[in-house]
């Protein structure tokens, strides 16, 4: 398949991108608003073309453990779900991190807590970036704002996951999952051969074959001294990721007097508000973290010294604001504006929040 321009939903783009990346397996369980991922894969039948395995599991718990099993054999495997289902996957995600396995997890967030609503939300920020499962671990967390980024972050997520041998998450929301946009699909990449996997992933449990030593994938280590060593190794990996993989996009920050921090599709709503505010002569800028972990702490700290105030806009009660406040360490006031339960603010509400929370005069 060549590069191709298409109009499609973010969820559909994920499916196309996974096939074109040369992913080996997808394991998922239906849940709104992301069921199109599995539906599209089933429609496209990649097992007849690239040989990719697609399986509807009996539960989100089974799906993440299938990912664990596939990842242990060095394969590029992924799962997708939405908030309640991602809660169920947390145990498996902790095991993936602890076993140093690469995998890709998509969360198309919906409003919670509990069964909540099926409408868009960003209320799983804490769960994604602070370690939703047990133990000290991080996920590489990518926040797409466009259908194109949904597409591109499949490859980026897999590449980072394999580079650092750690699971990566695409933390999307119902808007970017359900909306259709123009998207450039990358050309088809071949799946790695078993031989390539044996070379690139010498740790994979593919069957001992001609290898001299057997491989064991496990997260268990009852000797605390050794388990601490394992933890130190994980932290070393996270340090390297934090040093090398921070990604963000800035908008109108050169002359900004006030700063918005927003991620995902909410950043686009804010951008429209900023365009309107700029038309009225107000110098508002924005930074959109693309990696939520590692977080663009250093850049936000710099901008914090430049601006008179920062507003975080999130589809939650105020989660990312904690990381922004940590970054600026009191150098400038940081306020939060959010809608919850699946309500998406429109650009005017963002402008109102700038007025009311930061006393910006319009």
């Amino acid at each position, binding site marked *: 398949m060549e590069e191709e321009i298409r109009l499609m939903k973010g969820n559909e783009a994920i499916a196309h991108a996974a096939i074109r990346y040369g992913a080996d397996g997808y394991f998922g369980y239906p849940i709104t608003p992301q069921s199109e991922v599995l539906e599209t894969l089933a429609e496209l039948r990649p097992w007849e073309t690239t040989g990719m395995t697609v399986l509807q599991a009996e539960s989100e718990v089974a799906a993440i*453990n299938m990912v664990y*099993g596939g990842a*242990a*054999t060095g*394969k590029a495997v992924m799962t997708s779900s939405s908030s309640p289902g991602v809660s169920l996957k947390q145990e498996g995600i902790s095991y993936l991190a602890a076993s140093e396995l690469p995998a890709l997890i998509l969360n198309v967030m919906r409003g919670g807590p509990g069964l909540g609503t099926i409408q868009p939300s960003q209320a799983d920020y804490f769960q994604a970036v602070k370690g939703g499962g047990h133990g000290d671990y991080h996920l590489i967390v990518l926040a797409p704002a466009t259908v194109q980024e949904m597409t591109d972050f499949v490859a980026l997520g897999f590449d980072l996951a394999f580079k650092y041998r750690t699971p990566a998450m695409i933390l999307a929301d119902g808007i970017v999952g359900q909306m259709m946009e123009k998207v450039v699909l990358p050309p088809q990449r071949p799946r790695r051969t078993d031989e390539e996997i044996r070379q690139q992933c010498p740790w994979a*449990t593919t069957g001992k074959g001609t290898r001299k030593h*057997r491989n064991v994938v496990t997260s268990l280590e009852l000797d605390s001294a050794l388990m601490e060593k394992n933890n130190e190794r994980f932290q070393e990996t996270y340090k390297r990721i934090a040093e090398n993989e921070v990604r963000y996009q800035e908008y109108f920050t050169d002359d900004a007097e006030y700063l918005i921090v927003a991620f995902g599709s909410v950043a686009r709503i804010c951008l429209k508000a900023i365009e309107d505010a700029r038309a009225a002569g107000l110098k508002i800028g924005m930074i959109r973290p693309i990696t939520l972990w590692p977080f663009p702490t250093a850049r936000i700290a710099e901008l914090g010294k430049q601006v008179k105030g920062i507003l975080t806009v999130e589809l939650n009660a105020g989660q990312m604001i904690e990381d922004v406040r940590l970054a600026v360490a009191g150098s400038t006031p940081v306020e939060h504006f959010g809608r919850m339960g699946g309500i998406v603010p429109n650009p005017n509400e963002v402008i109102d929040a700038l007025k009311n929370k930061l006393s910006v005069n319009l």
Partner: protein
Amino acid sequence: MTREEIIRPENKVYGRPELLMPVHTHYCPGCSHGVVHKIIAELLQEMNVADKAVGVAPVGCAVFAYNYIDIDWIEAAHGRAPAVATAASRLNPDALVFTYQGDGDLSAIGTAETIHAANRGENIVIIFINNAIYGMTGGQMAPTTLLGMKTATTPYGRRADLNGYPLAISPILASLDGTCYVTRQAVHTPAAVRKAKAAIKKAFQNAMAKRGTSVVEIVATCNSGWKLTPAQSNDWMVENMFPKYPLGDLKNVEPQQ
């Protein structure tokens, strides 16, 4: 005869299977796990499939199974071994993938994964050690614990009105279209060990021939948990476990000629 005259290759009648790692196991003396491990190690070697084998270890007493048999292993989360094995097998069709699970892992927390993997007919082998108790965590009730049986969480004996009934999982698995072979064996006598070995061999053959899911339940002892000597445990098992969990094939779909 001197020692040197006796120790000659032609006189050798028994040896430690090469695939059994030269380590002490953490299993209690008298435990059935050791015998089943030995059978698996022997078979993988005799069938010349050790290089293709991927074992999936459970959470439970066999959590360290990967320390004892010299093949590739994946240690699964509690109960999820059949899901882990599903992907390992589907993504590596040439591999021989088997799970090794106890009654807590397989028939309590992992019931869903077990039933659905078997129902999909995954080309895997599920080896199920049923000793009617949670050994690793200190002898608590398992789904398979017999009525009246005393455990740490049923100190006055299991009562149906409080704890429900003993769960026989193999008949359920035998009723599924995805399984090709479901059998119940034991390893308490040399004859039983030979039968159990033949059963696991058949299961491995089924997986290599992609005939669906094979389940080998081993009705086993836990002398520590049962608070009996190993010999008493064997007798107690014959007397009490076998009536509820009778040995023999529950399902054996012969290959089409």
